[in-house]
């Protein structure tokens, strides 16, 4: 009886999560793209933030970059919340402050993911973001490094998360985004759920806490993505 009740609770929780799941999965799967003229293949989260807040217009390797944004949409909301730490309203106020005090320009804005991809493909030095489903022909995808510049510590031991059977049988999957703190000795000291299904998030957190990275001189933070594919 107790097992049946627990099973029912899981199913109810899973069904309640079905509606926001798309948004949450999207929040964990924004793809950052760039025109092929951008030399870098990867960009740190801090550098990405500086580019979109117009604090810098060139990457460390010297590549000139200009941001292009969507006017609205769930991918746009996810990107600016997770990488810029702002709401759309905050971001508009920020850009208008730059424009009307003379300190910056209004960045290029377009209406959809496909327009971003098309604009980035034809315009040198541009950098934008799209959903993973968007065709990225003619652009390159940039890998996002950790939140800190030294956040790319090597993973030595990886423990795969347990996929909750109820969710897998209902084909409920997606990705979970976590921000983790790695201790100098390489153990995962703490985790913070940034996006994804909360039940999958619990499972991912339990696994990631058992991961071991290479030892480093100091504590570092990074962001990781843990996929849950119900078809596997």
């Amino acid at each position, binding site marked *: 009886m107790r097992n049946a009740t627990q099973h029912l609770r899981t199913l109810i929780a899973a069904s309640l999560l079905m509606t926001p799941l798309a948004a949450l999965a999207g929040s964990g799967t924004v793809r950052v793209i760039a025109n092929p003229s951008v030399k870098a293949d990867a960009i740190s989260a801090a550098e990405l933030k500086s580019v979109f807040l117009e*604090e810098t217009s060139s990457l460390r390797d010297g590549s000139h970059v200009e941001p292009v944004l969507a006017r609205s949409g769930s991918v746009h909301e996810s990107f600016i919340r997770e990488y810029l730490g702002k*709401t759309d309203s905050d971001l508009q106020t920020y850009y*208008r*402050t730059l424009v*009307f005090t*003379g*300190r910056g*320009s209004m960045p290029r804005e377009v209406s959809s993911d496909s327009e971003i991809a098309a604009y980035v493909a034809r315009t040198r030095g541009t950098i934008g973001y799209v959903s993973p489903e968007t065709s990225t022909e003619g652009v390159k995808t940039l890998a996002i490094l950790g*939140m800190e510049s030294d956040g790319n510590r090597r993973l030595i031991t990886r423990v795969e998360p347990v996929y909750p059977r109820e969710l897998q049988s209902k084909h409920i999957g997606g990705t979970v985004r976590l921000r983790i703190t790695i201790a100098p000795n390489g153990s995962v000291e703490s985790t913070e759920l940034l996006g994804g299904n909360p039940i999958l998030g619990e499972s991912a957190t339990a696994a990631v806490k058992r991961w071991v990275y290479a030892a480093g001189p100091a504590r570092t933070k990074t962001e990781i993505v843990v996929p849950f594919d119900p078809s596997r």
Partner: protein
Amino acid sequence: MHRVACWIFVFLCAGQSLLCGQDFKVLDRDVQIHGFASQGFVHTSDNNWLTMYTSHFGSGEFTEFGANASMQVTDQLRIGAQIYDRNLGGIGTWHPALDWAYAQYKWKPWLGIRAGRVKTVLGLYNDTQDLDFLHTFALLPQSLYPIDIRDTSIAHDGGDIFGSIPLGAKRGTLSYTAWAGNRDYSQYGGVAYLIRADGLNFNSVGGLQYGADLRWTTPLKGLLLGISRMNVDNTLNYSITEPGIGTLLLRSNDNSDWTNQYYGQYTWGKLLVDVEYRRSWDDAGQTGLSRFQEDSRGWYLAGSYQILKRVRVGSYYSHYFINFPLGGVEPAGTGHDYDKVVSGRVDINRYVNIKIEGHFMDGYGLPGATPNGFYYVNNPQGLRPNTNALVVKGGFNF
């Protein structure tokens, strides 16, 4: 005025396509054109406020607009300029002014310079105090950002050195701006209005001003702390014309006036909380004849919350106190203005907004000594201790 209000109404009703920033190219570089306009209406319970005659039927003599053009010449160099015009009762009176016009060169995120007419960074909002669409409130706290004397602190002709220095993930970011230059008060601002109201001729106020702002984006998410300092050496030139005698030129020199400002801002989701404190010391007069000192202090605590996607509500308490202990010219005394405010803002879309705001004021500052919203010339019947005000304002930007 009515003609301008009609034009603004037409713009407000215009299609959204009109309200997008306009770009064109010069020498293969994008030039951006942006602008803004707003129209306000103010009604007060008793005293006339902000040089408008607000206490009977209210006043709509509260119009502002501006437009700018800017160009990113290279990755490091950008240039631009903005004109600004307003009519606020007897202030501004449709005389356009160069708001800012400068070149900015940024070598690195931690080092850049600006030269020309530059907006002065002082506290959270000095440089954006006239950009109504950036704020929840129709009127920023008047204890620190008095709208009638915006020209006394808004910009300087000179230069800035600025930059941001990351201190590491655990220490946040430190941003600095150091500036110096000359400032000329407007011929159509609150100071000129007050001097002319006293029957004197206002010629000019200007002089060297310099200062710095240091702000720390702390590692605690959403928390910003800062401090600003401004030093002033102004000279006021004015004259008295007596029939049959002629014109007597007079000069008043400030003597190392200063302003200190401390501030904090906390953002948590849809909540924004601001707190600022400013103290200004003013030592002015004619050496050997009469000198006087003003010690004014203001602070406010403001909070606003986005309750719907396009609706934000807010409230603040603004506290202004001026001490005028050595009155050689005006009667000595003290004055205050304590203002409790509730406000709501609706964004029709990204470009158009409407605000409605209630002010509940106790006091009127020291109108004979320094302008702060209330003027004897607009209140010949005498000032009453309390004033309630309704402010309605609509505007757009593109």
